[in-house]
């Protein structure tokens, strides 16, 4: 159906397209009128919302939304940290682009130049969000710093592209080092630990660390679930099915209220650490199921061939099975990351000041209390979540297409 419509659009005049797609039968005409009305209504409602909404609550509290109660005099650390992250991503992306380019040149294929238009098409929601956030800011400082950050990222990208092939692995190492120092900048030498972080910053950090810690756990349980040893298989299945059978909130409640009973006396980690433990245990089970899917996709012949070559069980898993399985699993892992990103909103229930809790507490501020401004702050927070999830899910579909998962 869809293919026919696109072909008529290309061939025929616009009028024909309208007739084919909107008024082909009386039923279709009816639908068109109903849904046209709906769109019109929604559009008018949206315009009215923007005309009447009081954005002052967001303007006043923008910093709170971004970083929670992170000490304001230490904000430079957040900027430095973010710049390091952007630079690390830029360097890694540049290096992989460089190696892709080198591969194309070697094969004698044409190398496409960098296409700013493609970047805009791929990342327009993020660019839009940055514009919205900067336009809500009261001073020009964030805009300037964002530009500096962008330039840093582009510079790192350029560095990565022109890097000689021998230095490429080295650049990934540097990128990891940058990520670690991005973390260190916030914490060491008078910085603040993550119990004082908050807002969007904490949301992103918790989801990224959650998936990072959950990954080894997931691989362990996935391999365990496919083990030929019944006891290990049972342990893994029990863990996975138990965690997948309960909602995240029960694990968070456990982390907040019951974890201190399970640890030795005197050991009492901060609240963010505790929810991070809960989130890691939770995501670990889901990652395990994703990885299991990838392991199942590796043809049995691969393992048999490795064994025939005299490789041991461990070497076979590490060198033959896992690299193929994990490659196929990347899209599913991105999907898991997206749902974790959305699930971090539950931290607001257990009293952690992440993005969604900020929208709750700003509505309790004396100057904004009881004015029904939840109808402004909640959509604002929703926009941030939407931009993150939507962009990542589109990128994941792109990776899926490139890896050819599901087409083999």
């Amino acid at each position: 159906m869809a293919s026919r419509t696109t072909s008529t659009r290309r061939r025929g005049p616009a009028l024909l397209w309208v007739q084919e797609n909107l008024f082909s039968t009386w039923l279709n005409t009816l639908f068109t009128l109903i849904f046209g009305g709906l769109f019109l209504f929604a559009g008018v409602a949206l315009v009215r919302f923007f005309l009447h909404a009081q954005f002052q609550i967001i303007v006043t509290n923008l910093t709170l939304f971004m970083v929670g109660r992170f000490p304001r005099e230490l904000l430079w650390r957040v900027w430095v940290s973010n710049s390091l992250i952007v630079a690390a991503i830029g360097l890694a992306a540049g290096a992989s682009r460089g190696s892709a380019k080198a591969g194309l040149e070697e094969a004698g294929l044409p190398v496409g130049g960098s296409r700013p238009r493609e970047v805009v098409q791929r990342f327009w929601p993020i660019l839009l969000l940055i514009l919205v956030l900067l336009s809500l800011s009261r001073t020009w400082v964030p805009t300037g710093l964002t530009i500096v950050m962008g330039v840093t990222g582009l510079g790192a990208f350029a560095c990565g592209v022109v890097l000689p092939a021998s230095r490429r692995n080295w650049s990934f190492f540097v990128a990891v080092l940058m990520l670690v120092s991005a973390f260190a900048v916030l914490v060491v030498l008078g910085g603040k630990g993550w119990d004082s972080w908050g807002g969007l910053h904490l949301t992103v950090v918790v989801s990224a660390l959650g998936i990072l810690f959950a990954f080894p756990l997931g691989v362990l349980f996935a391999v365990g679930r496919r083990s030929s040893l019944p006891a290990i298989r049972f342990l893994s299945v029990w863990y996975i099915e138990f965690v997948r059978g309960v909602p995240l909130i029960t694990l968070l409640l456990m982390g907040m209220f019951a974890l201190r009973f399970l640890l030795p006396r005197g050991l009492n980690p901060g609240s963010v650490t505790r929810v991070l433990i809960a989130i890691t245990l939770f995501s670990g089970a889901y990652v395990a199921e994703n990885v299991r899917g990838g392991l199942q996709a590796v043809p049995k012949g691969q393992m048999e061939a490795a064994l025939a070559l005299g490789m041991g069980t461990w070497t076979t898993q590490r060198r033959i099975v896992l690299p193929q399985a994990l490659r196929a699993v990347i899209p599913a892992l991105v999907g898991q990351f997206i749902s974790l990103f959305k699930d971090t909103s539950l931290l607001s229930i257990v009293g952690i000041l992440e993005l969604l809790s900020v929208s709750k507490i700003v509505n309790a501020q004396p100057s904004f209390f009881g004015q029904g401004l939840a109808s402004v702050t909640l959509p604002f927070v929703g926009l941030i979540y939407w931009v993150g999830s939507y962009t990542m899910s589109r990128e994941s579909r792109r990776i899926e297409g490139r890896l050819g998962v599901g087409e083999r």
Partner: protein
Amino acid sequence: MWWRDVGTLRIVAQVVAVAAAFAFLGYLYRNLVTNLRAQGIGTGFEFLARPAGVNVAGSGFEASQPVRSVILLGVKNTLALVIVGVPVLTVVGVVVGIARLSSNWLVRKAASVYVETLRNIPPLLVILIAFNAVLLPLPTIDNALHPLGVLVVSNRELGVPWLVPREGSGLYLLVLTVALVLAAGIWVWRTRRFDSTGAPHHRVLWSSAFLVGVGIGAYFLIGTPFQVSLPEVRDRIVVGGMAARASYVAVLVALAMYTASHVAEITRGSILAVPKGQTEAANALALTRFQRLRFVVLPQAFRIAIPPMINQFLNFTKNTSLGIAVGYAEVTLVTFQAIGNGYPAPQMILILMGVYLVFSLTISALVNILNRRLQFVTR
């Protein structure tokens, strides 16, 4: 050497793994017992019989009733969401999913906007928007609106007309049940007749006509066994009809809409996953559009859709725990409140997890049975 034998190593590895797991759990348990004792909290479940000290708004539950009953009430409230929510989200999701494949451009776009918006925001946010931004700004119960004269709309409770049983309702339901069995019999008879003679069966027409005929006939013979009751506000409570608290409506509608966006994707994916050759073969056999969908595409899509669909029902069930954010007294909220009242968190959370595990394992057992029965017979 015996200790390099694979058989021995396998046993050793398993024993070590199990021992390590039990040692870890035992360590946690010992910490738990020590810590609970140190704080003077029992390690048993005797507290379940003590008064809950929780007031559940709008349920008539009293704080003096035991913890046990408040948990049961929470389970009941969770089920109230699941039983109504699952059919609603299925219908909405399937309709939206099919709409995404519509030949009408506008319908397709509307469905995409619905799916892409809802799928990419947290369900908790949807619930909060429904509650804080849509339902709370409604008039208070004292100034409740009565749209069309039959509904009650306020920011505390919402009421719709409902049927209340009167004398003879039991008899009427019995008659309906018998009629349903007979209608099934008619269905079978018409099908057999069609199989043996080839005459058109019209089984839908025959059995539904019978059912409707009996239903209407018995209604008047018994003498209006059911009566329509309209909701109204009396003493700041909605009486008559069917009333629902705003928190219930918020969780139900928000979660159903959110989950429906996932169901829509499953529906669309399943229909697209039916091999194209099947449609082409159906066209080659000159089946009509309806026949093609009814007998060729949908039965196959249905099989593909069942496991992920039930997974979504499970997700919905687990997500009802978000009712805690808007004060709907489902099982997570009452557990949370009981913990706040000083009941031991480890035991309470264990019970809570047990409740959800029962739900989940029941549903996954269902999936497995269905999967086995619905799977294509292959070589």
